[in-house]
């Protein structure tokens, strides 16, 4: 593999006088997990939205290496192509699982939707594939016909993950995937994410404010403050040998139980 799977160059996004993301660039290679950490207002979520094509940057380019068509400029693609990409080769895990699920249809339908959207027309196959994925995210496949409204937060997140991974995307965007969950639930979910990213060689951009999450899941770390990247490198290096004053502050601020 000679090309990065994702390349962001000079991403800038402003809101009026305020610069939310200021000239951020990075490359992501297949199978790499990149964590973007920062406090509120750092611009990390805006950056994620820019590179995942949810938001158009004011400047800069986002390029994605497709399976069969080479490198494409994500914001220059047609709406149809972008939507197709979002349903096949990309995944997006929302912080609030309800935003990434159809709450009014069953778990099985949620997982099977992407398959149906891609033309799968055999009910039995859709159902067994959905059932497989529920098991892979450590859910009880017997709950395949239940509505996500009956699921706990942790289970909804697992369902969201399964829904995204069913088309074997090569790139997954995650926005605080475990925030807001109980600590023990968070822990299990992190383990699941860790094993899935390794097992399926997922490339991922993971936004989090939690350094421990970054340590556990990410190969690389980007620290953002006021829209800029202040430090970047291997996760253990940035956390064990922080160079930038802000990074040092962040690392020293983390409570150790």
């Amino acid at each position, binding site marked *: 593999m000679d090309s990065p799977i994702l390349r962001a160059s000079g991403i800038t996004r402003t809101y009026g006088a305020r610069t939310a993301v200021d000239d951020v660039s990075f490359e992501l290679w297949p199978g790499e997990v990149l964590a973007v950490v920062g406090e509120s207002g750092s611009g990390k979520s805006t950056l994620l939205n820019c590179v995942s094509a949810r938001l158009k940057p004011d400047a800069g380019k986002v390029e994605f290496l497709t399976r069969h068509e080479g490198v494409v400029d994500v914001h220059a693609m047609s*709406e*149809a192509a972008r*939507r197709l990409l979002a349903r096949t080769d990309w995944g997006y895990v929302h912080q609030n699982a309800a935003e990434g699920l*159809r709450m009014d*249809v*069953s778990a*099985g*339908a949620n997982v*099977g*939707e*992407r398959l*149906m*959207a*891609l033309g799968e*027309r*055999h*009910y*039995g196959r*859709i*159902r067994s594939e959905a059932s497989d994925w529920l098991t892979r995210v450590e859910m009880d496949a017997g709950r*395949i*016909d239940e509505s996500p409204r009956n699921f706990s937060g942790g289970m909804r997140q697992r369902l969201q993950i399964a829904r995204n991974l069913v088309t074997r995307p090569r790139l997954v965007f995650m926005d605080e995937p475990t925030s807001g969950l109980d600590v023990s639930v968070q822990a299990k979910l992190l383990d699941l994410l860790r094993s899935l990213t390794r097992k399926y060689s997922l490339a991922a951009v993971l936004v989090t404010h939690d350094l421990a999450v970054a340590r556990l899941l990410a190969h690389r770390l980007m620290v953002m403050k006021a829209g800029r990247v202040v430090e970047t490198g291997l996760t253990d290096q940035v956390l064990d040998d922080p160079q930038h004053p802000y990074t040092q502050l962040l690392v020293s601020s983390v409570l150790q139980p």
Partner: protein
Amino acid sequence: MSAIDLPAVVERDPNFNFGYLDERTKRMIRRAILKAVAIPGYQVPFGSREMPLPYGWGTGGIQVTASVIGPDDVLKVIDQGADDTVNAVNIRRFFQRTTGVATTERTTDATLIQTRHRIPEVPLVEGQVIVYQVPMPEPLQKLEPREAETRAMHGLAEYGLMHVKLYEDIARYGHIATTYDYPVMVDGRYLMAPSPIPKFDNPKMHMNPALQLFGAGREKRIYAVPPYTKVESLAFDDHPFEVQRWEKPCELCGSRESFLDEVITDDKGGRMFVCSDTDYCRSRSESNG
């Protein structure tokens, strides 16, 4: 026979323009119809006019009929297959009054048929036009209430959601539970709501020699299926589309092929099954002797 005695012949009322609508409005609607015919199954917005009956009573169908009807047309109006229900009678009288065209109850004699919720049993032929009354033109509306989103889905042919709904039915009931207004793919491109006809009638839309027009007055949409167009009901490979069947034939004419209505005959639970298409039933009875 209704309790009120109506005059046998309805006079053309010269105070109304031919077909009630002004010529400019008819032209606008015809343009919408042309566009609809050019893009089979695509919902064309149109400037739906105020009609002398409220929304929900067929204003869309009436506007379409009013725009295409000519002095030489022979009009048939049915409601749930019957020519003699209140709605059918009133709409027929409306057109008699505003156009003076001949009307008929025989499908074979009609050039223009307006229908609510059924397709006649007698196969239509080239040159005939059938106008469907449509309450809700958007097949995805119950699943995706945002119009911006459904427009994008139609534009991009992203119809996975419809299959999600069918999947849910099978998961919940063991079979697809939709029995009327069963979604179809038109010409392999657009997902269409055929109006609340029973799914029994869906196969009749496929490769039909007649022109099929659909009008939704409240929702302000017109769509069309040109003659000899592919219309396929959605299904799964392992749960194919199936039509309703009855155990007994029609008790009046003996038909085993038509759509039967259940009629309650007394207050002790007595019931009988008879053809919903009154013209069809009567023709068969007459030929049976």
